[in-house]
């Protein structure tokens, strides 16, 4: 192993409660900003959310239409594959059960796509039954652009790279298609409780 740096601890890593914190993670008090590209700045007037692909008919919502859908407040722990976890984060969003309820589909897979070209893939089942939202507020405030605003996908039970920032829609598919990081070797599913960080884990 590399030589130990006397007195170096790294970020304050609080006592890790294995019930709350998945293996290999540590808890942080800040909210790190990780990005694969420049922050998009889509105005609310241009924004829309679309569900398309293997559906009977694609559906789209403008920002006004999206914001008039029923919303929920969600408190969740989030886990980033770069090893930080943040507990009890509070979001407001529209449940994917509501959004997916507007389309008729038998597709098993979803690719979420975002402004700037980012994509990530998930089984449709991971987005339903109250486990996923399109979030537009964090901690009581409109979601800041560097954290994915105006709206991001929120899927807290998977590593946070699956919670696509700047999300603009879902492409439903009959066949799974790896997204941006999945293509580079990150795990196709990404369950933090099974430490599914990389392909082969």
């Amino acid at each position, binding site marked *: 192993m590399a030589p130990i740096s006397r007195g170096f601890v790294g970020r304050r890593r609080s006592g890790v409660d294995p019930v709350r914190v998945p293996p290999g993670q540590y808890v942080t008090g800040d909210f*790190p*900003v*990780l*990005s*694969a*590209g*420049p*922050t998009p700045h889509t105005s609310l007037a241009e924004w829309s959310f679309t569900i398309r692909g293997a559906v009977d008919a694609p559906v789209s919502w403008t920002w006004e239409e999206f914001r008039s859908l029923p919303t929920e407040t969600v408190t969740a722990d989030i886990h980033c*594959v*770069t090893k930080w976890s943040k507990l009890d984060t509070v979001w407001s969003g529209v449940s994917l059960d509501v959004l997916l309820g507007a389309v008729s589909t038998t597709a098993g897979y979803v690719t979420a796509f975002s402004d700037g*070209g980012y994509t990530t893939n998930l089984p449709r089942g991971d987005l339903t039954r109250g486990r996923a939202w399109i979030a537009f507020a964090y901690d009581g405030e409109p979601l800041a652009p*560097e954290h994915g605003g105006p709206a991001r996908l929120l899927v807290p039970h998977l590593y946070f*790279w699956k919670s696509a920032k700047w999300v603009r829609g879902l492409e439903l598919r009959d066949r799974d298609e790896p997204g941006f*990081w999945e293509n*580079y*070797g*990150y795990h196709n599913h990404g369950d933090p409780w099974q430490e599914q960080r*990389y392909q082969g884990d």
Partner: protein
Amino acid sequence: MTALDGNAIAGLLQEVFGREMTTVNGICASCGATRPMAELNVYLRAPGTVVRCASCEDVVMVLVTIRGITCVDLRGLDAG
């Protein structure tokens, strides 16, 4: 977040390519812009390192280190 530039990954690039790379010209496969690797936009705070053209912001290179092995995707770079 604002990007850094190729200087920020000079060590990583030298490790991966076996030579100093920041003075090497990279040609964006998307828009053709040619500039030294040092002048590309680098986003490092992510599951991997994403390098983008400073003119069009398309992805030029992606470096991912998994289980100690670094893979580089150079599809966004033209041979020129």
